[in-house]
């Protein structure tokens, strides 16, 4: 058993969805996955019963802004994609960068991007995204 620390993680992304590449300068990422439930309780039941339904996800990627860092510009400007068909692909790694290992992958849309510049501090970019379609987990 081995616990993981954040510095082992990584984010890979491709706006065209063909070949994910590591975004250099990623400070953190988070993913929240939600499964809706349907109430299937019947007349006469005394306890409620549910079945799982639609699954969706959303999250955040935080970058230490560097306009020259590999992958950053394409990532943070994807929010400007009009008529976004959710063709961008993401893979969020808890450790390493081996596709399909210790990661969660999905197609998605960057829904907002915020860049902050403060005196005495490093410029930070925060991008929020939602998943679209299948979320593939490889966290076991």
């Amino acid at each position, binding site marked *: 058993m081995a616990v993981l620390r*954040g*510095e*082992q*993680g*990584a*984010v890979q992304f491709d706006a065209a969805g063909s070949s994910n590449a*590591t975004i*250099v*300068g*990623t*400070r*953190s*990422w988070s993913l929240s996955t939600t499964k809706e439930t349907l109430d299937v309780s019947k007349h006469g039941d005394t306890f409620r019963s549910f079945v799982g339904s639609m699954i969706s996800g959303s999250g955040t990627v935080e970058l*230490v802004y560097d306009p020259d860092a*590999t992958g950053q510009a394409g990532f943070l400007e994807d929010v400007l994609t009009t008529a976004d068909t959710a063709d961008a692909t993401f893979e969020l790694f808890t450790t390493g960068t081996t596709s399909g290992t210790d990661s969660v992958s999905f197609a998605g849309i960057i829904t907002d991007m915020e860049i902050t510049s403060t005196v*005495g501090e*490093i410029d930070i970019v925060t991008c929020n995204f939602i998943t679209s379609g299948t979320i593939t987990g490889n966290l076991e």
Partner: protein
Amino acid sequence: MAAADLNSIRATIEGRLATELANSPAIPVVFHNMAYEPTPNSSWVQCLTTFGANEYLGQGLTTDSQNRIVGLVVMNIFSAKGVGPGANLVIGKRIRDLYNRVIVSGVYFDAPSGPEALASPSPEGYFQTQVRVTFEFIEEL
């Protein structure tokens, strides 16, 4: 990318000061681990560069990752005792202007603190002020 060369960072910081104080009026400057016997009633500067706490900036272990290296430059300015602070502050301004919000060779200097007069000069026999400048360097692996 490569790990930060700490000696190169030190040389950047100290070289900047040595070049400035070699200009007229020249002021002797001494750095860490250097012997110096000051002339009585003269002005001179001691520059001490130290590296402090570092922190993670980006994910990625030893590749495609960044660390923030933080350090401190302390410059002790010594001048003749008993003749007021003017000469000392003139040197202090030269030093302060050298580093004030400057970015050189990837070293980010913050706004300097001081010159601050010290009640107990070390060595004794001088009027001593101190200028302190924190700096950062982003290490890209």
